[in-house]
């Protein structure tokens, strides 16, 4: 019953977005306190300040929703970006703005803080409170009055609105088209205006700002979020808290303001961001809030003291949500094996003073072999804690990137290396993937043809007589529309395109570490893998760019099943074979 009474529609909504975590406080409390953290014996007079509570509840609660927070508080939380500047320019020029994206991207937050910038405009702060008809009436009226209009609306409802009313209001089609063209591609070696300086606001135009294209886990934004959430202004009441000295939040906050752990946290999150999955502002803030508070109230934190299970380096891998899932996929130091480091940490062969947080939370050196003989699990836990702390606080702490694919992907982007060499590297990998039995060329991409009318046919025999010269190919990189570049600044590159130098629209291959990994690890087969799908489609689409001789064609024939291969020279004019080998 209590749960039902405590339930609110919003609370339910929050719970749906972030999977429920099985609370196991008993387990945590029952674990032995670390040697560094002492059990707290303070009085019970711990009161949670409203501001601290606000930061704490950014994880899984309503303070994460801008429409439920007073503007003053939003202003305090606000992280300054160029978005305000862009909005001001557009509105001053007499244009309209649609701020859209995922739930949690910060649309309402942004628009509620831009009163000044939006002066003179008709503003819809939260489209979900109005019917489509009302929104369109206001939008249309603003258009007719040549008055700026500004709306914050999730992308789903926006597309819905356009879909339902584009016949009545044909100008809505422009909104849809813009949505599909927010990302374009340009040659990698070409200089371009990364900061969107060339963006010019114009009267009577509608500008779409899709916040889902903002890479939240970028070094700049993550750094700003850490600074904001650890800022002293939120924790003023801690000064008078009797539990302050032994409160994990004090330690967590201090550490995340120290250059080394802060830099490591940024590195960790930007590495997660490069995995390509979109993370919203709300999810990123929730993650940092959990790092600081472990999702616990001041009273619960008082009871937990400074035990390992409430420290930031532990919390960073123990919560629930999008960021935690990304970190769980290979970025947790516990899951990264480094034989030498692991051996030293396990045996207690390190200098505790080298850890940044040692002065605040001293480390104890001990050989875990001695514990493991009696209590294996405790030793494993302690090693895990140490390894995570090592990553954040030790001068040599680092994320191990064993992936050759990442290194090769970085190399492809290195414009210091001539384009021909980078293209050659990629072409050689692709040629090798199609035909492992021959030396792969790097000066031309070989195109392959396999004909079976039965899609799941088992024959793999195929022929190749066409090449696309390296000079006819080019690497492209994605770029956001000028307005988004201006608003979001430089964004990390998660993928490139290999495409025709003339036209990358259809004959294109998305190149990212996943593809490179596939090229390195596998070879052509009929299995329906993402690598096979991408390369087969690219191979087929590229055919029109193949170099064709009208007279003679050398056709390579291979059958991977029998390992038989031949190169047959065909005289096309006389329709006869010349030779074969």
């Amino acid at each position, binding site marked *: 019953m209590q749960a039902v009474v405590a339930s609110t529609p919003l609370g339910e909504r929050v719970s749906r977005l972030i999977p429920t975590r099985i609370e196991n406080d008993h387990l945590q409390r029952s674990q032995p306190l670390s040697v560094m953290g002492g059990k707290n014996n303070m009085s019970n007079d711990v009161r949670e300040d409203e501001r601290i509570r606000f930061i704490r509840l950014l994880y899984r609660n309503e303070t994460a929703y801008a429409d439920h927070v007073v503007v003053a508080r939003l202003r305090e939380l606000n992280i300054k970006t160029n978005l305000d500047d862009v909005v001001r320019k557009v509105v001053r020029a007499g244009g309209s703005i649609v701020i*859209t*994206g*995922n739930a949690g991207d910060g649309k309402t937050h942004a628009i509620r803080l831009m009163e000044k910038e939006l002066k003179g405009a008709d503003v819809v702060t939260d489209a979900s409170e109005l019917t489509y008809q009302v929104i369109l009436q206001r939008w249309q009226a603003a258009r007719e009055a040549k008055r700026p209009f500004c709306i914050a609306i999730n*992308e*789903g409802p926006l*597309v819905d609105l356009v*879909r339902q009313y584009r016949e009545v209001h044909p100008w809505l089609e422009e909104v*849809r088209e813009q*949505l*599909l063209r927010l990302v*374009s*591609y*340009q040659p990698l070696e070409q200089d371009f205006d990364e900061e969107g300086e060339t963006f010019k606001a114009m009267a009577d135009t509608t500008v779409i700002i*899709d916040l*889902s294209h903002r890479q939240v886990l970028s070094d700049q934004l993550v750094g700003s979020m850490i600074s904001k959430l650890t800022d002293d202004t939120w924790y003023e009441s801690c000064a008078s808290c009797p539990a302050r000295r032994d409160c994990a939040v004090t330690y967590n906050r201090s550490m995340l303001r120290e250059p080394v752990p802060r830099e490591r946290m940024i590195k960790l999150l930007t590495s997660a961001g490069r995995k390509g999955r*979109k993370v919203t502002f709300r999810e990123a803030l929730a993650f940092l809030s959990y790092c600081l508070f472990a999702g616990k109230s001041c009273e619960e934190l008082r009871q937990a003291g400074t035990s390992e299970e409430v420290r930031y380096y532990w919390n960073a891998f123990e919560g629930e949500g999008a960021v935690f899932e990304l970190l769980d996929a290979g970025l947790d130091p516990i899951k990264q094996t480094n034989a030498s480091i692991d051996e030293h940490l396990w045996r207690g062969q390190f200098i505790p003073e080298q850890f940044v947080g040692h002065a605040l939370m001293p480390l104890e050196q001990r050989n875990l072999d001695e514990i493991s003989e009696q209590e294996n699990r405790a030793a494993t836990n302690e090693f895990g804690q140490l390894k995570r702390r090592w990553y954040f606080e030790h001068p040599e702490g680092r994320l191990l990137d064993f992936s050759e694919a990442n290194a090769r992907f970085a190399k492809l982007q290195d414009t210091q290396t001539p384009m021909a060499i980078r293209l050659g590297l990629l072409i050689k990998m692709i040629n090798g993937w199609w035909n492992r039995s021959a030396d792969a060329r790097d000066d031309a991409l070989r195109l392959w*043809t396999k*004909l*079976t*009318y*039965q*899609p*799941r*046919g088992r*024959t793999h*025999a195929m*022929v*190749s*007589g066409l090449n696309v010269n390296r000079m006819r190919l080019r690497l492209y990189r994605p770029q956001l529309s000028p307005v988004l570049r201006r608003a979001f600044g430089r964004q990390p590159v998660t993928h490139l395109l290999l*495409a025709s130098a003339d036209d990358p*629209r*259809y004959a294109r291959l998305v190149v990212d570490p996943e593809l490179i990994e596939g090229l390195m690890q596998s070879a052509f087969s009929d299995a*329906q893998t993402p690598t096979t*799908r991408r390369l087969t489609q690219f191979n*087929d*689409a590229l*055919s*029109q760019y193949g170099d064709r*001789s*009208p*007279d003679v*064609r050398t*056709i390579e*024939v291979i*059958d991977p099943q*029998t390992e*038989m*291969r*031949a190169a*047959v*020279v*065909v005289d*096309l004019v*006389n*329709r*006869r*074979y*010349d*030779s*074969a080998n």
Partner: protein
Amino acid sequence: MSKVLRKTLSDELHRRHGYRTMEAKIKPVHIANALMRVEHQCVGRMNVLEQLFIATHRKNSTEQRIAAVQTMITTQKERWGALGQVTDVRNSALMTKVLPLIRTLLGADGAAFGNTPEMSSFSSPTALTVTADPSDDGAGAFMHRLWGARGTERLDILDLLAELTDPNKKAADMDDLSALLAPLVEGTREKKVTSSFAAEDLSSGFSAVEAELRRAAIHLAAYERKLNPNPIATLQRVVLLAGLSVFMHASTRPHERGGLERRFLLLDSSGEHFSPVAQASTRCVAQLVNDASEYLSIVLSDLLESAHPNWTSNPLGAINALLEAGGHAPFDGRAKLARRIKESIEETNDPDEIRREVCEELLREIEGNQRRGLDGYLRMLGIRSGFLYPAQKNPNKRLNPSDRTLEVMVMATVDAKLPPVEYRDFLEQLCDRWGIVVGGRPGDAELIANGGANVPGRALRDNSERFLDRLESLGLARRLADSVAVVGLLEAAHA
């Protein structure tokens, strides 16, 4: 007896629909061969290919094979260039590599047999190698008519097919496979085949299903024209659409011609054999197949009715009348079949029950253990078109299209000339055109529940999400923000 009745039923299906379904050996390569034959009105001259067949047939002795290669070289020296200038034929590249590889390529679909190419259908992209193989059982001619070989109704997809497979293509325009095969064929000879199509279906206008299938062909042709990919990739998709169209047409005969309920298929993206979605999909396919059997019963009943009005009063007499009308001898009343029919109707006077019992008994006799009826035809064509899965002998098939099949279905559903459509609009179109549901529409659960397959709403939604993932990985869809996605021919905008 069963052969005679099978032929009678098969002829009736051909008369009604334009293709036969009683042999259940159909493959897309047969349709490709027949489509090219009808379109170009020719077959290839294959003396050299005949020698190649002898030279590469495993059952032939080495001496026979060497002799065939020597014949090839000596009779047409100019064709072989340096390849033919060998002293040791047995160990020559021609004998050990080139000819076996070419045979492997031609037989990629498992329809190239024995010592003679005449009754084979080749995995070839050119009409130069078209044969007179009748294994398509009329499906090629049916598709040619459906796509409109009559004046202004002719669809662009046929022009595309004609261009791709043109036996007189310029050398420079040839795809690699055609270039490799060209020296093996002396040209073509005329073969008139258009006048043979005279089925009830397609005789006057198009039914709803046929109209949808024509629209599918229009959309696929537009996609191919815009994409302009490897001609063989295009040809494979065109032929696959033909195979899928025959499947859809045949599977909707129970509904459009037999008056049975329209069926919907659930596309399984769960990736698990025993998931609720996979099981429901299997059930949907089973239902479709059962309808096919029921439709054959209806056709058989109609045949008996035409041979002997009020036939349920004298089933054996009606069967004999049917046989005699086809010029066959009546069957012996003491035969096993006659005994079984007598036994099955002994205890009832209800005409409907007699109709059902007799038709089922006759179908069992006609189809035999091989299930050579419309149901077997659908299973076989569905598997070979990459539509149904698994391909093994397991009789429980589900709708799990291969990548290529999915690409054809998607691009034959959306219009590549228009901007991409939203995912939910695409799901509506997919249902309208192909009778396929994925689980992403509000009414999907009810549609499949009507057919007796119940799946939890959550499982259906997950299935739809996974389907979208798959479309995305095929480059046919793009997710925007907030659960919005678009489907279609996606362009990478060029800055």
